[in-house]
């Protein structure tokens, strides 16, 4: 019996600098939960967008119910019976649940019919809803229920779910699984995108693992363990590591002690007892899949968020958890947040003006509040020359630089002051290979000259190349650090997927 429901045939999708999907072929069986597993940037989202009609593939076809799927928009996808629940909700916050459901329907339907259908769906799939409640008053789990019901009203054959549990509490996750199982029993098919290994094993029948735009394996989950999945997700890429530990001093430069911070917001990850030490001259890496608390931790390390619940940050034997970023810079800390445009640099301002965003004690940019334009200009020119920033000059607007050049400029600005500690998030995110190499080199050189560095990154290759120790952040908790030269990819993969041994 042929129960293949969807067949991807050699799907290829290229973007200007990256091949997001490279010759993707696999099958999804009818009435199964099929997991699509991979790191950030593995190509999962691109593939799903092609399936849902948001992107057109360059090459290849999709067979849906034994027919070639030929769609160019999500509404056509919905007409064919494909529904998708996105990671971020698209609901009108000020309207009620009922209004949102009515607005989401493409076809004409009488009010009483809608009510009957809703009651039917609610009871059949364990999806209780209060129709008169305004969306703002709902929890993230309830909002997701509204989204699911809205899709189910269209009676889809295939339901795509993008990281559905990332905003849910454990109790809500269990309820979701009950719903999904009921849907599958009825003959519907679910394509479940995730990076959580545990969910793949407990919920899904089959799994397709993607890495760097390619399908690594597509198989039943029956004979898989979290460990075997982790290895497939990350690959076995350890060659001879030449991590150099010789210059690290046995002296703690920075330590985080039991930092906890709760946000009361489903789109933020609460941090739980984050503790780690960084020695003088050491590069400490924090790995993890996006959205597990990295940006929240970064805000606390930089000092943009000083409203922590408990814990201490100690730098050079001084408590700094309540100091703002400028006061921390005065102690010789430097910061490079992930986002360049509008965070570590202001696109509308010139490069010289951007220099002023972070002032260190050894800069002479101002006296009694009055700017010294010459010294700012000199510093900008020095950064541009020393870090090979390609730009017409220091009076060019930051927005006119390419991503890699602006990142070199920002990092140059921060490390030209020879800080004792550099905290950097995603140093080479979205930039070309040349700039990537030079940035990694400059970080390694900096640490050899005695600067401690904390690197937050999703890019494991990068962390393995430059760091001395790596810890993994998952759901706001930080694992014990591992020496980079003894690192075991499978173990890292387990930690990133939320499995402790």
């Amino acid at each position, binding site marked *: 019996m042929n129960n293949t429901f969807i067949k991807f045939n050699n799907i290829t999708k290229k973007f200007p600098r990256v091949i997001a999907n490279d010759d993707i072929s696999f099958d999804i069986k009818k009435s199964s939960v099929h997991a699509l597993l991979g790191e950030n940037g593995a190509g999962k989202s691109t593939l799903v967008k092609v399936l849902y009609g948001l992107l057109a593939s360059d090459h290849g076809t999709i067979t849906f119910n034994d027919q070639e799927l030929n769609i160019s928009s999500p509404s056509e996808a919905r007409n064919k019976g494909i529904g998708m629940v996105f990671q971020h909700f698209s609901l009108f916050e000020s309207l009620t649940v009922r209004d949102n459901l009515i607005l989401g329907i493409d076809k004409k339907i009488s009010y009483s019919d809608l009510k009957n259908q809703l009651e039917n769906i609610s009871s059949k799939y364990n999806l209780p809803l209060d129709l008169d409640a305004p969306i703002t008053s709902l929890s993230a789990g309830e909002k997701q229920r509204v989204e699911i019901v809205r899709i189910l009203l269209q009676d889809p054959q295939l339901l795509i779910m993008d990281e559905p549990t990332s905003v849910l509490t454990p109790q809500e996750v269990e309820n979701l699984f009950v719903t999904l199982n009921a849907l599958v029993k009825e003959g519907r098919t679910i394509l479940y995108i995730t990076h959580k290994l545990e969910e793949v094993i407990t919920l899904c029948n089959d799994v397709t693992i993607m890495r760097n735009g390619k399908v690594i394996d597509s198989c039943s989950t029956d004979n898989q363990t979290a460990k075997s999945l982790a290895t497939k997700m990350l690959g076995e890429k350890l060659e001879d590591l030449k991590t150099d530990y010789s210059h690290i001093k046995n002296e703690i430069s920075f330590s985080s002690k039991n930092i906890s911070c709760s946000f009361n917001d489903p789109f933020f990850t609460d941090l739980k007892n984050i503790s780690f030490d960084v020695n003088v001259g050491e590069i400490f890496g924090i790995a993890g899949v996006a959205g597990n608390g990295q940006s929240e931790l970064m805000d606390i390390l930089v000092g*943009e968020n000083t409203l922590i619940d408990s814990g201490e940050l100690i730098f050079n034997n001084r408590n700094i958890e309540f100091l703002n970023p400028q006061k921390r810079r005065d102690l010789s800390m430097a910061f490079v947040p992930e986002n360049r445009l509008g965070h570590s640099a202001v696109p509308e301002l010139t490069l010289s003006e951007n220099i002023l*965003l972070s002032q260190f004690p050894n800069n002479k940019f101002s006296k009694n509040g009055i700017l010294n334009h010459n010294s700012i200009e000199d510093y900008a020119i020095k950064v541009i020359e020393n870090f090979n920033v390609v730009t017409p000059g220091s009076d060019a607007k930051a927005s006119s630089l390419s991503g890699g050049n602006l990142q070199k400029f920002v990092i140059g600005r921060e490390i030209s002051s020879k800080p004792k500690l550099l905290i950097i998030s995603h140093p080479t995110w979205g930039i070309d290979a040349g700039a990537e190499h030079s940035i990694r080199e400059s970080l390694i050189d900096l640490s050899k000259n005695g600067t401690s560095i904390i690197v937050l990154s999703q890019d494991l290759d990068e962390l393995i190349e430059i760091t001395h120790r790596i810890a993994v952040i998952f759901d706001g908790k930080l694992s014990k650090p591992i020496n980079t030269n003894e690192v075991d990819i499978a173990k890292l993969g387990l930690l990133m997927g939320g499995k402790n041994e």
Partner: protein
Amino acid sequence: MNKFIPIIISRPQSSNLMNVLVPVIAVILTLLTGSIIFSIMGFNPFFALHTFFISPISTSYGISELLVKATPLALIAIGLAFCFKNNIYNIGAEGQLTMGAIFGGGIGIYFYDTNAFWLLPLMILGGAIGGALWAMIPALLKTKFNTNEILTSLMLVYVALLILDYLVVGPWKDPLGYSFPKTRQFSESGRMPLLFAGLRVHFGLIITLVLIFFSWFIFSKTIFGFQLKVSGYSPTAARYAGFSQNILVYLAFGICGAFAGIAGLSEVSGPIGLLYRDISPNYGFTAIIVAFLGRLHPIGIIFASLIIALTYLGAEDAQLFMQIPAAVGFVFQGLILFYLLGADLLVNYKLEFNK
């Protein structure tokens, strides 16, 4: 069909020359459009434009009147620039002006029979404090309760106007004034000195020019000016740099309120000489247009205040000599703003047609 709809593409670098020329181009286009409108209305466009833009300022008296009107507009607008650069939308300058007039004018009324050199400086100080205090209310509400300053500052305009109303018909009423809603005259030393005998242009103009220079210095040479700019463009970057948003909110509101208060005081102690109900023909609101026309830049604001003041004078003359409604003045204000914003767009973006 799509062939005729242009795509708007951002220019990598806008031309500095064009940036300077934009206001000039906008004025020329406004005059061209104005002459077409006048032709349609049946007037000789040259005569009409002459009546509107030349004859009001063809006498020394006319130029003095232009400066009298431009003085409060420019002073309030440069104050507003502190707020607008920081993306704080203080719409309540009219209320801050009124409070300045009440505080400063109150001192003038209290010392109505005193003649001393310190009286005017004290009144100016009172005006600045009155305006700044009134501006502190929306600032406090914004930083403590995250209220929208557009609403609070606007509503406080009407509160201030009603307080003035109450004072001039109640406790501060001129005892010898036959129950007219006005106060006593300020003493001679409580009046802004006139700059030229026989003309109404007064010392307030000098104060305005000094404060405009002061603001230019703050904007281009100090850390504080830089902080205003950064937090206006990107609050996230300002937080990263470690600037305190709350302090910036208080300072911007405080400076803006003080400037508007001084403008109010210099109106009542300049041309008017006492307090009554209608001390300002909406200078506080019109200054918002001036600030944006002048692109929040000190020099730009000086020119913009002269242009807007001229549309007021021209509208009065057009009403007198051409029997057309004074509202034509607003048509010209609108045209200038329209062409300026349009030209601005084309400096930063280009249109591309599909070939």
